[in-house]
């Protein structure tokens, strides 16, 4: 038995709910918790106070890029946890490969974008049945695109493009190297200046080869599905620059995002 009896442990319920006890006290308290339901009720009531303090403490803007990241984390959780035999439009299981998780994450990002377009399901009451049905149908289409990509098997390359800075933009490029189709998804990327656009480059033998043009929305997200990419050998990296609208044959500004292809 610890130096505490249950009565004195009761006095620690508030500190426990705040996560402020030492490791030893926490162990003793949790042992008591398991044998005393009234102690659990005591903790639960303090947790309601915690919740009130949380909301009254103010909120921070939780921007769409962060939401996409959170949704992606949940998706990877889903991938790991649920064999989900009843769920449709899931890519074939191929084991815990990093790209499979990333692709599932992209699916969720896609659904987030679809949701935005479907009428701003910002408030709880707007999550209507009709939206869910349309989203599900649209998701099925997107899922087919993903399955096409996943069908690439070992010919699928995933390139993570990064930048520097405090909250840098980022991008993922999914590239079926056999069929030469790709999907890109950028986040925390502010929209290009007026009259400008972002351009993807593939670096072949050190020379930038022009590729897809795209732009991001006000929320910093960009998604281009199923565009054409070269299939050739010798490509070692992908990069993004900001160019005049219409694109350029050669980069005219410094590289904004860059990532190397995984070596095979």
């Amino acid at each position: 038995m610890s130096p505490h009896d249950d009565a004195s442990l009761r006095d620690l319920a508030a500190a426990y709910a705040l996560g402020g006890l030492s490791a030893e006290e926490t162990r003793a308290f949790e042992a008591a918790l398991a044998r005393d339901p009234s102690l659990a009720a005591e903790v639960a009531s303090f947790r309601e106070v915690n919740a009130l303090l949380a909301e009254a403490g103010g909120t921070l803007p939780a921007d769409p890029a962060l939401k996409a990241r959170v949704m992606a984390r949940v998706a990877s959780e889903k991938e790991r946890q649920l064999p989900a035999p009843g769920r449709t439009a899931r890519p074939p299981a191929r084991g815990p490969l990093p790209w499979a998780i990333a692709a599932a994450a992209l699916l969720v990002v896609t659904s987030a974008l679809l949701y935005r377009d479907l009428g701003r399901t910002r408030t709880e009451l707007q999550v209507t049945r009709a939206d869910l049905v349309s989203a599900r149908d649209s998701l099925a289409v997107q899922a087919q695109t993903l399955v096409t990509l996943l069908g690439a098997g070992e010919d699928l390359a995933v390139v993570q493009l990064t930048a520097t800075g405090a909250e840098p933009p980022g991008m993922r490029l999914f590239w079926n190297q056999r069929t030469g189709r790709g999907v890109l998804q950028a986040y925390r990327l502010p929209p290009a200046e007026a009259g400008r656009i972002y351009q993807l480059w593939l670096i072949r033998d050190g020379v930038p080869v022009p590729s897809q043009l795209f732009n991001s929305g006000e929320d910093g997200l960009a998604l281009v599905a199923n565009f054409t990419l070269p299939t050739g050998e010798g490509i070692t990296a992908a990069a993004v620059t900001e160019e005049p609208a219409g694109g350029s044959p050669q980069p005219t500004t410094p590289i904004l995002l860059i990532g190397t292809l995984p070596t095979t």
Partner: protein
Amino acid sequence: MADAAAAARSEFDAGLVARMAQGEDAAVSALYDRWAGALLAVALRITRDRADAEEVLAEVFAQAWREAPRFETTRGSVAAWLTTITRSRALDLLRARGRRKRLEETAAIEPALPPSYGQGPAAPDRPVEDRERQAAVRGALAELPEPQRVALEMAYFEGLSQSEIAERLGQPLGTVKTRTRLAMEKLRDTLRPYYYAEPAA
């Protein structure tokens, strides 16, 4: 007892968790829209690092996803559940980072945080009952005796342990524990009408 509007919202939250347990992304999305801002602020106050706070938030929703099938409304509100997860993950991360070092750091992140209690107006974009609740919490905090309020704010907002608070204040550990307990009990008694849900006894 929670009032009717709060009860309805709490029920809505619980419905979202139930749908999340069924695997619906839309439910996660709605839950995020509803709570992410407040949870992010909680995590940032404890971690004092925006990237860490965002990492915590992602972990919170991943854990909520895992545990949704086991969520029981009789054990408390969704708000309390999410707040508890957030604080636990933030404190875990703090321990992993070495909280000793953090204790010596200055409060450089402060400008990024929402106004503290007693400062600034209540968020104008929130529904009336939220603003009333926020005003009630701020009022209840303001009514606490200063030493109790200080101990509570260190525990809640900074995520300090009871012994760290004792060290910081130069007070005996027992004194800090008593102040924390009295503060929480008083808040509980004063704020019970505003609970998101009443846990079963």
